[in-house]
């Protein structure tokens, strides 16, 4: 059990902890900050899993732009209006939800690990994550760029269109609100 193992398990633990905090914290600003930290930890995990492009884009979009958007929306609301009252965390009120969460988690872990065994059976050998940088890693960056711009070019164009429409939709919604005010 080396340092690498400890670091990766700690990252996974932090990921789950920040996700739980994002869901459970009553103050929305803290919840959003926790979501940002979760996205940052996830980006580090992507980098460890040899996905540097995904890590950088995740960091820019989810840990950057989306969090700024969340904070902007929160700042446009009346301060204190939507924050929970009373205790920071009410354990008794969360018991039914907690039981639901545990049931879903156990079922999903069971399904995923079973499918993992199935994949191993299909490959005919044990699949593990690469411990050293594999030779494929050398050409991987080029492969990702190639598959983005050649194989999945339609997806990328549709994504650009979807983002454009989303931006237009947000602009129209805000404009309508401003006009109503005037």
């Amino acid at each position, binding site marked *: 059990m080396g340092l690498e193992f400890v670091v990766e398990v700690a990252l996974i633990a932090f990921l789950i902890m920040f996700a739980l905090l994002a869901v459970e914290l009553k103050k929305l600003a803290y919840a959003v900050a926790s*979501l940002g930290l*979760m996205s940052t930890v996830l980006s580090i995990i992507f980098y*460890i899993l040899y996905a540097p492009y995904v890590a950088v884009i995740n960091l820019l979009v989810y840990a950057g732009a989306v969090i700024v958007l969340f904070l902007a929306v929160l700042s446009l609301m009346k301060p204190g209006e939507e924050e929970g009252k009373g205790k920071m965390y009410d354990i008794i009120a969360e018991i039914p939800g907690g039981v639901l969460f545990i049931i879903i988690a156990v079922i999903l872990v069971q399904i995923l690990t079973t499918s993992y065994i199935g994949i191993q059976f299909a490959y005919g050998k044990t699949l593990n994550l690469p411990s050293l940088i594999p030779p*494929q890693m050398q050409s991987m960056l080029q492969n990702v760029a190639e598959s983005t711009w050649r194989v999945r070019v339609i997806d990328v164009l549709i994504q650009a269109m979807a983002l454009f429409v989303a931006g237009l939709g947000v602009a129209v919604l*805000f404009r309508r609100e401003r006009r109503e005010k005037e």
Partner: protein
Amino acid sequence: MIGLNWYLAASAILYSIGLYCLATKRNLIKMIIGVEILLNAAHLNFIALSTTTAGLDPLARTYVIVSIGVGAGVIALALSLTLLVYRHYRTLDVRKMRRLKW
């Protein structure tokens, strides 16, 4: 590097946290946070399953990149709609949004 099972279990737990959030929370912002956690869980699953000693799958990574962009657009729209809903109803509690007439 730790086994693939750890990452699969982590993504399953993240996914269940997102589902739990959508099922139990009544605040619209919290529900959007739940959707984002669900998206992140799916991305982690894709990346973990595409990284094995049998090879790295670039198509899965490309798919995740596309999904991140589309997810960000969805969240932006959901947040702007949330803001409009808040200005109309003066609350983010989904139980109190009963009137359909704008």
